[in-house]
């Protein structure tokens, strides 16, 4: 189980690293890219951990409560969210100042023409559409556990 866990992590990690932007074809060069790298790595780690938890909760018979279904859903949504933010960070690193209009104002837009990269970036900005349901799943799951436990204790 543990090996699998590490294995998943390593695979994902190498996959991501190979897909990571290299300074040579960057539109905009960041002064200290290792910060971003570490951040992205942490996302990958998180994805791995969530995937592991999602998988493990699925096969465990110990946890029959409905609450755990919400936990799994939370894992799944958060995993998606992590992928999205990862994509967001990655796509943003390819964009330059010229790709934005009216930066720093309420009228800020993404400059035309709309390329797939820009569209991807734009979509990733709506990551909360995933994170809000995800955190709600966590909340609902816990509330279910709490109620069950309360009912059990009352007995």
């Amino acid at each position, binding site marked *: 189980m543990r090996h699998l866990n590490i294995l998943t992590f390593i695979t994902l990690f190498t996959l991501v690293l190979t897909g990571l932007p290299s300074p040579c074809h960057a539109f905009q060069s960041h002064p200290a890219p290792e910060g971003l790298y570490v951040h992205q790595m942490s996302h990958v780690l998180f994805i791995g951990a969530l995937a592991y938890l999602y998988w493990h909760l699925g096969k465990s018979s110990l946890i029959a409560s409905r609450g755990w279904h919400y936990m799994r859903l939370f894992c799944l949504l958060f995993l998606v969210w992590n992928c999205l933010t990862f994509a967001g960070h990655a796509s943003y690193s390819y964009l330059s100042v010229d790709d934005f209009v009216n930066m720093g104002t309420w009228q800020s837009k*993404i400059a035309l023409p709309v390329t797939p990269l820009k569209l991807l970036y734009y979509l990733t900005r*709506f990551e909360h559409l995933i994170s809000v349901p995800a955190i709600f799943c966590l909340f609902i799951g816990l509330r279910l556990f709490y109620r069950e436990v309360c009912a059990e204790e009352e007995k």
Partner: protein
Amino acid sequence: MINLPLVPAIIADIGGSLIVIIVAFLSAQYAYRLTKIQPENFLWGFLFYLCVAMTAFATSRGVGHIVRQFLILSGNETAWRTLSPFSGGINTLLITSAASVIIYYHKWLEAYEAIQIEVGKQKVANAKLAETAEELHEMNLNLEEIVEIRTQDLSISEKKFRHFFENSKDMVYFCNDGGQVSDINQSGVEMLGYQERPDKLDLHSFFKDVEDLEKYLQTLHDNGFVRDFEIEMERQDGSLCHALLSANAILNEKGEVVGCEGVAKDMTRIKTITDQLISQRKMASIGQLAAGVAHEINTPLGIILGYSQLMQDDFSKESEEHQNLNVIERQTKACQKIVADLLKFSRQSASEKVQLQLNDVIEDVISVTEHSLNMAHIHIIKELAADLPLISGDPERLRQVLFNLINNAHHAIGENGNVTVCTSAPPGNTTITCTVTDTGRGIPAEIQDKIFDPFFTTKGVGQGTGLGLSVTYGIINDHDGSVILESPTSSGSGTSFHLSFPILITKTNI
């Protein structure tokens, strides 16, 4: 061309961040409560740490995003550039810690499982303990009740057996090894002729015959029981009592006989009845035999008589032949009388029953016999009841009965004595009695059960036939009556014959 305005993204960013922070906090709060309620459940611990990490991350990231939006929108982009690495760094750290919490999930699970098994064991043990405690409690509560019920049962059982013992119509007794009676019921006491239980009573008082007692004890020792052992007991007043005895030996742990318990049934009445029945049977068979013989003899006797009378005419009255034929005729007539008696005894001869007053029959007989009795200085006393109920009977044959009895009395007395004839009708009874008592020599006990037999006589040859009483017996039987012999009588000598006849039930009687 479509423009991609960033305003919706900014709003979604700010709003979403806020919501995520709030909900994360709420989740953490639930997780915290769970750990408080069930601190032993490691899964709650896991969820709590996960929530804490998630909340920290959500807060750091959300606040970071909101601050960024405000700083950028308010034109302070430089300030954000300074803050940005910190925010990013913290976020990275928090993501990593959240991931670490998750990575160690299986450890939490293992701990949880281990504890769960322990808890399960504990639960089973606790349940068992509780069950035992409950049982103990129940037993304690019920003990008194059970004891009470048992005591009640015991007393009911004791009552039952006590009742059986006290009220048994048979003797029930318990004896110790020395033959001392340790307990005996009232029936037993009465059977032995006592009013109340004597202080000292032993087996010797049961057994008249010492040999019987020895046999009884021997059988008890050998077999452990005695079944239907016939014994004769001597009552307190000296009278005899026939009893049937069944007993069991009482053994101690070593199997030694330490006493006995037994039941004795009074068979005196049954024995008397059986004896009577046997004698009746005997009478009946002898009667039948006699009747057959009598019948056959009757015809040749008639012919002998006829011829002897016929021949008498051929000789002169003074001739020796005539005298001899006379003797033949007399003796033949005597034979005929015997045959007639035999037939009467066996009820073969016809009888006609009418309503009659027994007193009249007695008067008739006495008037005939009085003379000869007076000659022998025998006084005849009549004690006849005034309103004696009528009976149904053959006057001729009843006369014969009384004649026989008075004759016997005469013979037993010889000279100088009394013959008393009395009749009575005890009130409430369905029979009348007639008693003929004499002051004669009495009848010895050893021949008392033989005198009713045909041809039994103590008289010399030619003096008596021995048919008198057997004929009497036959006639009385034919009248559904009974005859009882008492000798010696209550006066100490002499003989009494008690006759009883059923009262005739006519419409006028009722």
